[in-house]
């Protein structure tokens, strides 16, 4: 399920609008524990579409950094929610 979701998101990054695949990455971070694949997916967005004058925003990799931060904060949040439920 996790691998299939990652592959589908990667395909969307290649062919779909950004308002489809960026929320998918966030959904992956929420759905799967420690979804480190999100960093790779964010990197794919930065490598394929970034760099053209955006080198000063987080070293030209804003989406990879944001995915890493989201993944980092998602784990304690999931544990907290699990504890509450």
């Amino acid at each position, binding site marked *: 399920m996790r691998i299939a979701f990652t592959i589908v998101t990667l395909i969307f990054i*290649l*062919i*779909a*609008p*950004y*308002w489809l695949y*960026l929320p998918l990455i966030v959904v992956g971070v929420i759905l799967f524990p*420690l979804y*480190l694949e999100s*960093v*790779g997916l964010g*990197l*794919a*967005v*930065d*490598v*394929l*579409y*970034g*760099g*053209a*004058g*955006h080198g000063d925003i987080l*070293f*030209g*990799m804003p*989406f*990879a*950094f944001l995915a*890493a931060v989201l*993944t*980092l904060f998602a*784990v*304690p949040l999931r544990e907290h929610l699990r504890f509450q439920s």
Partner: protein
Amino acid sequence: MKTNFRRRSDPGLAGRKRLTLVASVLALAIIVFVLLRSYIVTAVSPVWRAENVFSTTLRNTIDLVRSKDALIRENELLKQELSSYETLLLSYRTLEGGRDEVLSRYGRDESVAGVAAGVLVHPPETPYDILVVDAGEGEGVRVGQRASLPLGGALGLVRETMSHESKVALYSGSGEETQAVLERGGVQVTLVGKGGGTFKLDLPREITVEPGDKVLTLGLRPELMGVVQAVDVEPTDSAKHVLVRGVANVGSVRFVTIRP
């Protein structure tokens, strides 16, 4: 008193392990980014080309099943539009020819053909205001060259080149500043990109500007950058806030010309 429960694991240790893992993955990602980015784009470009062919075929197929009457009406409207644009183009070409003749008399005869390129990726497929085109260093494209629409209209600058692909940063990219000139009065202005093919600029109140005014690039052969869409001025404001629409719908550009 002896207890039988196990000590809870140190949550700080788990957090530090997690942070180390994420940092390691990010570091690996940075290495990949620096070393392999041009190869990744080249490897993916056949997918973009195939997707463009597929979407064009799909569009043509959908047109086949539209009602005949709707197609006939659209055809008539497009013919009328085309006829008016042909007349306009003829007058512009005449003016352009006169300008080139004057420039050549002063030794500024610079006719450069440029490189024609197809657009592989455009917004909103990309969250950035860029175009990925199918011409790169192998076709003579270099960083810093200007990209325009085939019949004129400035789009942006080449910022990154690969062997057969290039990335063009649009002038209308969010936060991008570009020097331009307002055709009415020849006032030099600074266009600030807002994204989505639009710009904003601020002018002193005393400068006259109306919707429909053209904004051109600087230089001896100015190109159209945009058209003033709206002018907003508050009674207590010392400046006019002008919204400028770019030359093309960036989401539907299919071909560009790249010139030095």
